[in-house]
């Protein structure tokens, strides 16, 4: 065994084993998660962390071994992130999300959600009026691949058939496609809000326009009521989700433009994290909507039942988000 010349060498030799042990355990955690350690090893980490931290303080004050200080800094930082990180299990996290976080975040966005709803309604009204006046406007709102033959030149019979004829096969595939497609659009609507709300607001209006244009096409054929059932069986869920996505995006854009009392960075960060909670929920809503659209609508033909489901879903979501409730433990 080498005989150390310097005090800082002795200091290092006495503690090196503890640091190495902390390093090994952190490596395992970082690779495989905290579950790989047994209780005793897990409990040792805060102790080893504090020892390393105190070594770092001493080393900074007494040692000139640069390598040692660098090593301890990175070791302590890694341990810090673990010791002071979140350590809830997946189920705890999911439970808190559904019981508390999601409704709270959605409720906090009620103004923006109402605005998004208004913008959609506005888009729908304008598009309806325009298409009724001049059917050529229809092509401006509905791309031909979505229209799929449903355009002002279509016959009543054809239009009716689109509402009630199920696709012969491929329903689950269709549902999955709708879900992934819509979720992607919703994420874009959220992310775009960063640019001062404008793209998100535009997307909301455009969304409404498509609905309005469809109605303007079907109503003259006496199929308005039937289209409502066809559209809203999933539409209440889907439009609600789209509205929330747009609202979350607009909240970010608003915070960028008008941060209020907080610093701009803080305001944007807060809006972004709350918005993300809502967006995770939006993906779940769109999954539900995809099921309703891909499966429910193809299997349920009666207008009354379609309307019933539409209404029930709308009430269920609204109740879930906005029904006043006491929050557990008084925590925010």
């Amino acid at each position, binding site marked *: 065994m080498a005989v150390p010349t310097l005090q800082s060498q002795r200091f290092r030799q006495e503690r090196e084993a503890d640091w190495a042990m902390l*390093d090994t355990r952190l490596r395992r955690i970082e690779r495989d998660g905290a579950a790989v350690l047994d209780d005793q090893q897990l409990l040792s980490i805060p102790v080893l962390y504090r020892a390393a931290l105190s070594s770092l303080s001493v080393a900074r004050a007494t040692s000139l071994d640069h*390598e040692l200080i660098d090593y301890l800094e990175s070791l302590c930082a890694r341990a810090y992130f673990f010791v002071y990180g979140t350590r809830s299990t997946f189920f705890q996290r999911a439970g808190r999300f559904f019981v508390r976080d999601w409704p709270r975040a959605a409720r906090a966005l009620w103004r923006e959600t109402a605005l998004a709803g208004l913008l959609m309604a506005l888009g729908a009204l304008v598009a309806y009026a325009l298409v009724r006046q001049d059917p050529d406007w229809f092509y401006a709102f509905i791309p031909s691949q979505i229209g799929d033959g449903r355009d002002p030149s279509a016959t009543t019979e054809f239009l009716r058939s689109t509402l009630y004829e199920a696709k012969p096969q491929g329903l689950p595939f269709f549902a999955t496609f709708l879900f992934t497609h819509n979720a992607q659009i919703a994420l874009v609507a959220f992310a775009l809000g960063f640019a001062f709300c404008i793209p998100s607001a535009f997307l909301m209006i455009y969304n409404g326009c498509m609905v309005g244009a469809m109605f303007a096409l079907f109503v003259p054929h006496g199929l308005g009521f039937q289209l409502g059932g066809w559209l809203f069986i999933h539409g209440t869920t889907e439009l609600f989700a789209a509205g929330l996505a747009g609202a979350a995006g607009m909240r970010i854009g608003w915070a960028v433009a008008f941060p209020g009392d907080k610093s701009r*960075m803080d305001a944007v960060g807060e809006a972004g994290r709350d918005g993300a909670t809502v967006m995770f929920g939006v993906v779940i809503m769109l999954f539900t909507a995809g099921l309703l659209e891909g499966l429910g609508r193809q299997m349920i033909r009666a207008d009354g039942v379609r309307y019933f489901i539409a209404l029930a879903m709308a009430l269920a979501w609204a109740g879930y988000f906005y029904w006043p409730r006491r929050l557990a433990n008084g925590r925010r």
Partner: protein
Amino acid sequence: MAAAEAGSAAGAGDKPGRVRRLVTPEGVDLRLVLGDAGERAAAFLLDAGIIVGCLVAATIVILIAALIFHGPTQELLGILWLLIFFGLRNAYFVAFELRAGAATPGKRALGLRVASRDGRPLTADAVFARNAMREIEVYLPLTFLVTKGRGVDAWIVLAGIVWCGVFALFPLFNRDRLRVGDLVAGTWVVRSPRRRLLPDLAGDAAAGGGRFAFTSAQIDAYGVKELQVLEDVIRRNSSAMIIEVAMRIRRKIGWAAGPSESDRDFLGAYYTALRGRLERRLLFGHRRRDKFDT
């Protein structure tokens, strides 16, 4: 106080402007180092490569399976493909960054991790927010590139390029190397390398103690800054540099090289002696910053 000052001086030397304060509840500043733009880009490219690789592999496997099976299985395969695509695109980053290491494989390979800017735990919503923003940072420009602005005015193409550029190059235009996602989520990306402790350079008391007996004046020629440069030189171990540095030190302190004295041994012994002297002065409350400091 002196330690903190000196610490930041030492850190600022090799990574200027990228050191950030993080004071733990125990009151120690951990001095985090931000990942620079190159590391970030490399990590992202690695991750993108993994995503594309997985997607291609999954597509090939599913296509082969679709050739073998017929009927309803094909539809299931189609669903599987859609979900894999959706999952890779949206969940890859989130799932990895939610784990204890808070890093995707790409970030891990480069020794980076995501951390919350205010030092509090990294939450799931922050991770989700920072990655949802990839939609406008990455996928929108990609879509734009693929469509090549077909059938669109040049002005609109130009506006699109500017728009994409703003987001893609955002990290280059702020001090903390934040991308839009980091900004929105209140996070940043810091270096968190897993490293082994390299051996101490200070030699044994027994080894060479007799051969290298420096006088007090000879040891007092340098300060902490020079000591750290010397440490760096010895660790890099490039023979040209060692010869050069040894020659300069010998000239400075007036040391006559013995007949069988190697430059490497000389530097090692001088490093030990200098560090011992400076550390002793440190204990008495005096940190000699460099050779001009008395």
